[in-house]
């Protein structure tokens, strides 16, 4: 082997030496290809592993933590929720439709491979500025890709988020989360067990598509990305629908000993992981793999990332039934080998052994790096924000309209109206409120789902920003009436070999861990996506938090929209002069500066507990967390749902007007409450030491806000709503 051989595949000289040392000889060309994908960042987590170990992963409800295809938490009554988030950033940057579509397809397979019926998905998206035509192309392509795949397979896309910032121009983020439901005693794992048992490859035929997708995802985007385009696969949601139904039918009615989807690094990854987890070996004959194209080499078959395929191990007497079930669904099932006892992955082609490697050398043998971490220099200057240099708001009406039209705050209806969020008829709160809520058939319970991350905060202070992402996700669930259960996270960062980037990563992980511990929401799985850079510029560090919550009684759910006129509007939580990192500064002053709002986890817990208890006691008509755009934007959003206005009186108490109206202080929730329940709410808050401010009443057709007796905002709801609703659409006409 020559150095180019491994270097071209993305392996360092040291890594090659480690391979030689591990297996006691030089790998052959096929084996080297397998190491290169399995030891890529995407599959081996070699840069992040050590940091990920610091996450809290245990809790009473956790049935499956990190390490399998998806995490699982119990929700009582013998039921469990299975969920996981995945990134498909790089493929989406070159082919937005197929990149996003296959991203969704991949995460759906991760869910049903655990034995769960996928019931919903969410998409968390980041793009550059909408005034750039290339960005609009990527944005609309990604959205229609998610729609195309999700709608066809019949899994509702019930929520998500979209942010726009120039830092994502060349490297958009496409993170997709899927949630499934299963019975606790039906959990399936990706392990190859039982010496002599057959190994079956089911679903689509294997083609030459997506070679080296895993390595592609572990590289920065630049001019040569164009040449790497064969890494893009085309998804076939129809095939996946059949695969999903066939696999679930099989798993529900027959014994399946182990099952694993084929994703990044294709057959190589599935074979080595299943053997490694099961402590077994596999003897595989590649001539048995159904191929789409003629003359495929061992290398190509092993590294192909053709979509819509699964690998499973069953007892010999079940083999016939697998073929029968798959035939009924019109699908291929091929027995490609057997489980062995020696822990070796032995792979044959044309009668010859072409690979002979310890399975664990591919999965656990990868090096674990502890990269250097250095605080980035930009933080010295970005932290400096002198509010005295910034004139306070004079025309608050105008600023509010400007913020409502800012793409980060404007309604994302243009996106979600393209998604079938209703199929399966369990979506009782679709997109448009703080969290989506699903009912569970045959039970009183419900699930609430959300994804969150304000990456501007994380950029300005990775530790605090990541803490806020977790807190905001939990707050969103609480506002819908759910108890937050657990987290799946997608950590999107730049190149970890740069000490500044790795510092961001470590700080963010620390913040997330702390918040997850305080809020009792363990991390059950997730995904790391590094190398999100284009032309040397990294994206803002973006640790997306996906969170699942439980409603014991789905009838007792809550949404953000005001429900009737005459209710009291109450703010829980305190407002400070905190404008750093705000949407207001970015939109109205073109400034991304200062420190993000501070987060006190004890206060956060108190506010959340208060609101959750109030919703459970039936005290509230609405609840909405304060996020981008602060109090004024939150009030407007509460008015929009049912087009009910509000008359609000605020006391500035020494705060700047812009801080008061548009600042983004954390741990605040805005609720509306019927007059008769007001005392109970105030008492509940007092018991939890949560400050409350009774701001006014709902009603009328306008949002009117007075500050210290002075009218500051007065807008007809219909007009403000139209501005907010049409802003994104206007860019895409």
């Amino acid at each position, binding site marked *: 082997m020559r150095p180019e051989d491994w270097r071209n595949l993305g392996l360092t000289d040291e890594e090659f030496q480690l391979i030689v040392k591990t297996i006691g000889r030089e790998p052959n060309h096929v084996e080297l290809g397998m190491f290169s994908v399995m030891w890529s960042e995407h599959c081996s987590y070699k840069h992040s592993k050590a940091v990920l170990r610091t996450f809290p992963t245990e809790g009473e409800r956790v049935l499956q933590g990190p390490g399998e295809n998806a995490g699982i938490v119990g929700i009582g009554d013998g039921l469990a929720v299975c969920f996981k988030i995945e990134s498909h950033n790089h493929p989406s940057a070159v082919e937005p439709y197929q990149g996003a579509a296959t991203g969704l397809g991949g995460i759906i397979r991760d869910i049903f491979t655990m034995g769960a019926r996928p019931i919903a998905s969410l998409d968390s998206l980041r793009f550059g500025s909408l005034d750039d035509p290339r960005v609009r192309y990527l944005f609309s392509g990604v959205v229609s890709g998610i729609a195309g795949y999700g709608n066809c397979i019949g899994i509702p896309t019930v929520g998500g988020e979209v942010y726009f910032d120039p830092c994502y121009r060349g490297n958009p983020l496409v993170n997709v989360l899927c949630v499934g439901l299963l019975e606790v005693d039906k959990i399936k794992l990706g392990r190859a067990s039982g010496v002599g048992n057959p190994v079956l490859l089911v679903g689509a035929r294997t083609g030459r598509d997506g070679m080296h997708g895993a390595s592609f995802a572990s590289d920065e985007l630049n001019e040569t990305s164009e040449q790497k385009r064969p890494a893009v696969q085309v998804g076939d949601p129809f095939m996946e629908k059949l695969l999903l139904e066939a696999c679930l039918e099989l798993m529900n009615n027959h014994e399946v000993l182990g099952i694993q989807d084929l994703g990044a690094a294709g057959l190589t990854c599935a074979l080595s992981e299943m053997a490694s987890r099961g402590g077994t070996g596999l003897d595989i004959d590649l001539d048995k793999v159904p191929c789409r194209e003629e003359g495929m080499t061992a290398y190509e078959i092993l590294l192909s990332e*053709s979509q819509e395929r699964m690998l499973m191990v069953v007892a010999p007497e079940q083999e016939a039934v697998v073929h029968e079930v798959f035939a009924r669904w019109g699908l291929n099932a091929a027995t490609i080998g057997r489980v062995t006892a020696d822990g070796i992955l032995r792979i044959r082609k044309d009668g010859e052994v072409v690979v002979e490697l310890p399975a664990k050398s591919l999965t656990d043998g990868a090096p674990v790096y502890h990269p250097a971490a250095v605080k980035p220099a930009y933080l010295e200057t970005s932290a400096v924000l002198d509010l005295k240099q910034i004139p306070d708001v004079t025309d608050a009406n105008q600023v509010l309209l400007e913020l409502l039209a800012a793409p980060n705050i404007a309604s994302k209806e243009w996106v979600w109206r393209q998604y079938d969020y209703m199929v399966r008829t369990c979506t009782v709160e679709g997109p448009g409120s703080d969290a989506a809520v699903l009912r569970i058939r045959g039970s009183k319970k419900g699930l609430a789902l959300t994804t969150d991350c304000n990456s501007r905060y994380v950029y300005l202070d990775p530790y605090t920003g990541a803490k806020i992402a977790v807190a905001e996700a939990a707050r969103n669930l609480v506002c819908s009436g759910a108890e937050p259960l657990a987290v799946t996270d997608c950590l999107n960062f730049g190149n970890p070999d740069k000490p500044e980037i790795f510092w961001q990563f470590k700080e963010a992980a620390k913040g997330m861990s702390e918040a997850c511990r305080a809020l009792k929401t363990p991390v059950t799985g997730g995904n790391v996506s590094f190398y999100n850079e284009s032309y040397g510029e990294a994206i803002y560090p973006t640790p997306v938090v996906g969170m699942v919550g439980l409603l014991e009684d789905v009838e007792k759910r809550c949404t953000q929209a005001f429900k009737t006129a005459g209710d009291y509007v109450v703010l829980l939580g305190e407002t400070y002069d905190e404008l750093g990192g705000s949407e207001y500064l970015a939109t109205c002053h073109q400034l991304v500066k200062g420190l993000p709002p501070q987060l006190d986890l004890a206060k956060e817990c108190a506010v959340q507990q208060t609101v959750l208890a109030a919703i459970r006691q039936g005290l509230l008509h609405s609840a909405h967390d304060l996020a981008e755009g602060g109090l004024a934007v939150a009030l407007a959003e509460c008015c929009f749902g049912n087009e009910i206005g509000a008359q609000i009186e605020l006391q500035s108490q020494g705060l700047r007007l812009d801080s008061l109206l548009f600042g983004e202080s954390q741990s605040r929730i805005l609720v509306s409450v019927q007059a008769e329940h007001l005392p109970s709410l105030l008492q509940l808050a007092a018991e939890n030491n949560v400050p409350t401010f009774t701001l006014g009443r709902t009603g009328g057709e306008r949002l009117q806000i007075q500050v210290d007796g002075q009218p500051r905002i007065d807008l007809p709801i219909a007009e403000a709503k139209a501005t907010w609703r049409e802003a994104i659409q206007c860019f895409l006409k």
Partner: protein
Amino acid sequence: MLKAQIKVLLKKSVLDPQGQAVEKSLSSLGYHNINHVRIGKYLEVTLEETDRAAAEAQVREMCARLLTNPVIEDYTFELVEVEQ
């Protein structure tokens, strides 16, 4: 005027699920002599242009910029004269 008749197909190595589904369906309709089906797009773009070379260059440019996705698609086209 010139009309460009543009045929767009997925690259040979790219999965064509539509073509596969139709191939299967034709065979179950009893057409057993079908060897292969591929499905793509067909576009007709009429240009107010009389110069063939100029039209050809323009069509190529439009295909690269908007009409096709070179990542996964290939195209061919013909130019035919049409009346106003």
